[in-house]
């Protein structure tokens, strides 16, 4: 591809205090693409997303987005640039209702396709529960609300951290079936997942992380289950 990627992570090292979680990591997301990042617990997937979103400090040139180096920029500034993170475990605001969670997602008022009405069209079950405290939703509904909240800022890149976590397979399918609609409106996706099967079906390219490094990278259709299993478990 001759076009520069929308997101370019290059030689990223990430630390929690003295503990190094990511080593010399490089990944790409092209505009309009859905990319999966898979790996076992502790492989560094969430750390990668937190580093991109600005919750973990990085070197300035470690993360480039839309042509600009954003490493080390505060998280609220990165959100304004068009990266939205759907955090692990949903992380809805307990003091806010479902609708208030969505509205605060739109706090930045970035222009684009997504607004409250269209998020409700995508997730009709949220419209039915608009004024309910967000804590009263089921896990699947909370995940949809968290994704909707991310969409409300009309991001160019949506980072999803383990959206299948703790959900029944039928619920996970219900969520994944909507991802193409999100892509169609121009938001690129980076999906961190432990559910490899679902991730492979939903994305064009896959990175497999193992102990903070990229163990395998390639087109989703080209990678065999054996190759992924080997990279996933470090066999």
């Amino acid at each position, binding site marked *: 591809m001759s076009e520069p990627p929308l997101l370019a992570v290059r030689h990223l090292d990430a630390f929690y205090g003295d503990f190094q979680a990511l080593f010399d990591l490089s990944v790409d997301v092209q505009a309009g693409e859905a990319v999966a990042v898979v790996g076992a617990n502790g492989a560094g997937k969430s750390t990668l997303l937190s580093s991109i*979103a*600005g*919750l973990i400090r990085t070197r300035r040139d470690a993360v480039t987005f839309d042509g600009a180096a954003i490493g080390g920029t*505060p*998280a*609220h500034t990165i*959100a*304004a640039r068009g990266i*939205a*993170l759907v*955090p692990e475990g949903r*992380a809805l*605001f*307990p*003091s*806010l209702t479902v609708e*208030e969670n969505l*509205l*605060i*997602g739109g*706090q*930045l008022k970035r222009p684009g396709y997504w607004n409250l009405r269209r998020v409700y069209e995508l997730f009709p079950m949220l419209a039915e529960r608009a004024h309910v405290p967000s804590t009263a939703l089921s896990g699947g509904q909370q995940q949809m609300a968290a994704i909707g*909240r991310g969409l409300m*800022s009309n991001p160019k890149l949506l980072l999803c951290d383990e959206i299948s976590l703790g959900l029944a397979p039928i619920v996970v399918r219900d969520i994944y079936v909507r991802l193409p609609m999100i892509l169609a409106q121009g938001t690129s996706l980076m999906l961190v997942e432990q559910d490899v099967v679902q991730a492979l079906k939903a994305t064009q390219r896959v990175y497999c992380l193992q102990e903070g490094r990229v163990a395998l990278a390639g087109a989703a259709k080209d990678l065999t289950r054996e190759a992924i299993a080997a990279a996933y478990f470090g066999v």
Partner: protein
Amino acid sequence: MIDWINVILQGVLVGGLYAMFAAGLSLIFGVMRLVNIAHGDLIVLAAYVALVTTETLGVGPLTSLAFVVPLMAVIGYALQRLVLNRTLGEDLLPPLLVTFGLSVIIQNGLLAVFTADSRKLQAGDIEVATIRVFEGVYVGLLPLLQFAVAVAVIAALQFVFYRTALGRAFRATADSQSVAQLMGLDNRHVFALAMALSLAVVAIAGVFLAVRANFDPAIGPARLIFGFEAVIIGGLGSLWGTLAGGLVLGVAQAIGAHINPGWQLLAGHMAFLVILAVRPEGLFPKVRL
């Protein structure tokens, strides 16, 4: 009997003032878990700012609000942004220590500039005007006005918190600072706005205090105690609860004073201790601690 009605009524009206002392405190604790030890002294500071405003501009106390409220709000924003934001973190102790130091600085600063002389703002005829409710029961116009303003302030804060984007930002940031940042909210700015709002309420409370009673640089800590008790009695996290807490405190003090003038403060503290023993979460708690 009529006697007791008057007593309760006086207690209710003073309770409104206590609720205003408490509202700013409650707001700050709710948004950023910060206990502002200097809160009472900031009320007294506002009273002195009102004093200077009325003397230099030649306006009445109520008009001085137009100047004192914005000034205190700006002071609040700067205080939070420049000093208190640095103290916020996992530990509850640094904000307590810094605001304690601030309390000492404010008291001594006011003492140096204004001396220990007792001062009072004159509001004119309204101070002695009374309304006859019915035979034998009279209500002062000024206390009634202050009570009405206290209720209006609490209603306005409630509106801000639950019906505006700013209020959503306050509640979200209080829930989770990191996720709030993902929404594009700058925590430093949100906290500073909360402190500005708190000190705007403090400004109103300060002007009312200045008109109602004598004040001097040392009376801040006692106002903090009343505000604190009103918040705890009412329940953390509930603004209407803070109003209820103020009323309970005011009525308790009035009843105590009626039995024996020396028992006024004690009665208030006793009521506080009883609530703490019987229902420690307060009358209308809302906050998950």
